[in-house]
């Protein structure tokens, strides 16, 4: 098993390198004047020259790449133009917020999506199935930013049930917790008011973000179940008198989730993309919101750093998904 893990991680290294190459190419190849792009719109000629020296933009390409790799290794992504602080610091502070949001959305998508997919498969060709199929295709067609606004409109502005934006109510301070995840930290510190406020603020953004993923999970779980239900061992298990509920939810389901787990990697990418928009609309202080601000101010360093970070997270999630697959289907372990 360890060998499997190591091998899987090893396979990711070329992709990681490729990612670095691409981000490097993005800086140096695309804009007409990389130095100006990196320095920012209102940089003085002196600042631009300083940037040029720092990034070695007058040196040969491979040397520049080396410099770039060194910077990445030191986590030196420069100073953000609009926050005035090191980009690496900004990212480190904001990352937990995004992780909390995306994890909540992913969990929501799985906890609701999988059972709904099972229900759809089991009620094949009857109305619950048709309803689910329509909703899941619809769920993929909804623009996340529009859904966010609609939910805000209804639940916050009209009904007043949930907060409009932000991560925590006014006047409440985040506990200086170990994880940076408000829900966890506030529980650990016993600050229930903070926990409750954080939870209420999390609901709308997480629900918005989870919809697309949920739709995908419903589709794939349903398809996987339908396929598994045709298999011989299901007939055998029925003949052996397995109880129907256990048969479906334990014995058939585990065989059906392989396709879904494969999708979770891709799904996570969609979640990150969605987070960019959702964070911006709900004023959620994560890296998605950071990216949008960077776009609006043309802060190019930030965009690149975020792209790199997101890429790494994405690769990591895909490795985890592969490991989960091996855990689910023992036949994959001996590869």
């Amino acid at each position, binding site marked *: 098993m360890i060998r499997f893990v190591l091998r899987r991680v090893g396979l990711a290294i070329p992709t990681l390198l490729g990612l670095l190459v691409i981000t490097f190419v993005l800086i140096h190849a695309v804009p007409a004047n990389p130095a100006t792009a990196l320095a920012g719109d209102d940089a003085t000629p002196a600042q631009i020259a300083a940037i040029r020296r720092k990034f070695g933009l007058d040196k040969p390409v491979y040397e520049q790449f080396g410099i770039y790799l060194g910077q990445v290794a030191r986590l030196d992504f420069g100073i953000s133009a609009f926050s005035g602080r090191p980009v690496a610091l900004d990212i480190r502070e904001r990352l937990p917020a995004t992780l909390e949001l995306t994890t909540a959305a992913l969990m929501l998508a799985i906890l609701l999506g999988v059972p709904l997919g099972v229900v759809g498969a089991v009620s094949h060709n009857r109305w619950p199935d048709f309803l689910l199929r329509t909703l899941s295709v619809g769920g993929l067609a909804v623009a996340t930013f529009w859904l966010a606004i609609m939910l805000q409109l209804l639940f916050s502005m009209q009904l007043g049930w949930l907060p409009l934006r932000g991560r925590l109510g006014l006047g409440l301070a985040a506990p200086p917790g170990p994880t940076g995840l408000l829900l966890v930290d506030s529980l650990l510190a016993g600050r229930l008011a903070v926990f409750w406020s954080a939870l209420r603020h999390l609901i709308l953004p997480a629900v918005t973000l989870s919809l697309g993923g949920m739709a995908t999970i419903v589709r794939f779980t349903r398809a996987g179940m339908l396929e598994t239900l045709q*298999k*011989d*061992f299901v*007939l*055998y*298990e*029925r*003949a*052996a*008198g*397995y*109880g*129907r509920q*256990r048969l479906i939810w334990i*014995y058939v389901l*585990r*065989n059906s989730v392989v396709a879904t787990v494969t999708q979770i990697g891709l799904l996570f990418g969609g979640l990150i993309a969605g987070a960019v928009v959702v964070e911006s609309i709900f004023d959620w202080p994560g890296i998605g919101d950071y990216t949008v601000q960077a776009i609006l101010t043309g802060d190019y360093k930030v965009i690149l750093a975020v792209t790199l970070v997101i890429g790494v997270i994405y690769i990591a999630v895909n490795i985890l998904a592969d490991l989960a697959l091996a855990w*689910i*289907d*023992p*036949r994959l372990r001996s590869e």
Partner: protein
Amino acid sequence: MSGADLLSVSGLRISIRSDEGVARVLDHVDLTLARGRVLGVVGESGCGKSTLIRAIMGILPAGAHVDAGGIRFEGRDLLRMTETELNRGIRGGRIGFIPQDPYLALNPVFTVGTQLMEIMRRHAARDGKRGSALRAAFRARLVALLRRVHLPDPEGAFGRYPHQFSGGQRQRLLIAAALACAPGLLIADEPTTALDVTTQQQILDLLRALAGELDVAILFVTHDLGVVARLCDDMSVIYAGQTVESGPTRQVLDHPAHPYTRALVACHPARAQGFAGIAGSVPSPLAPSPGCRFAPRCAEAADGCAHRAPHLRPMPQGPERRVDCRLYDPAARP
């Protein structure tokens, strides 16, 4: 049909609706099985053997409809029982099932132990035990059973996955699973077809031994007369969904009555004089021949055969010896 029969199927007629139309898969199947006996159900592929088995177990496919007939098991009418009743008491409990393909029958992502324990959980007698004591008791019983079916390393088998066993071993596992809850009837669906010849013999010998030791009746479905000769006390021959002949194996094989049975016996490699086949081909259940379905291929067919209502009647040799053919029907016109 005596009251001591374990299983009796009478006049079973089943049709299955599909996109292509209505297939009359079974048209008058009669069979009886007494306690502790081994009955071989013989027929070619497509003759309806699987549908028969599924009807007995109550797992007919969607679109299947029982048009006529009944199935009685241990005095109860299986066709009238609800799904819950069947699942709780009959399947896995009183009737054990040994499937045809051991490579496909086991759930690939769970250990063998989990799957065996699931059956025990559902159906095995608990003897008043609970919790971990119950699990330990189940496990002990299973290990003993695995040893009886000659599975190497029974203790270790629990933690392994199906793909880690050979075909023959998997079949033994399935036999053990079928016997786990001490059923009165074992239904074996051509359980050796997917195995090589040597393993086949081993499995058949095992089944024979078990039938004797455990006083369990076996309904053995096959297309191979040789297997029937070795293993079965009685046999029943099905052609295109109709039972054409039945009786003690020795009698049927030595003195086959129905033209189809005679042709089958004549074709068998052990007995064939030359290369003889049976002319014609099996009719499709979507468009079956009326009356006796073998008539189009039968050398002895007469005009009346196409209008015969199926009726399995006893022969002079004895009440268990039955055949459905105009040749033995005193009332039929020649």
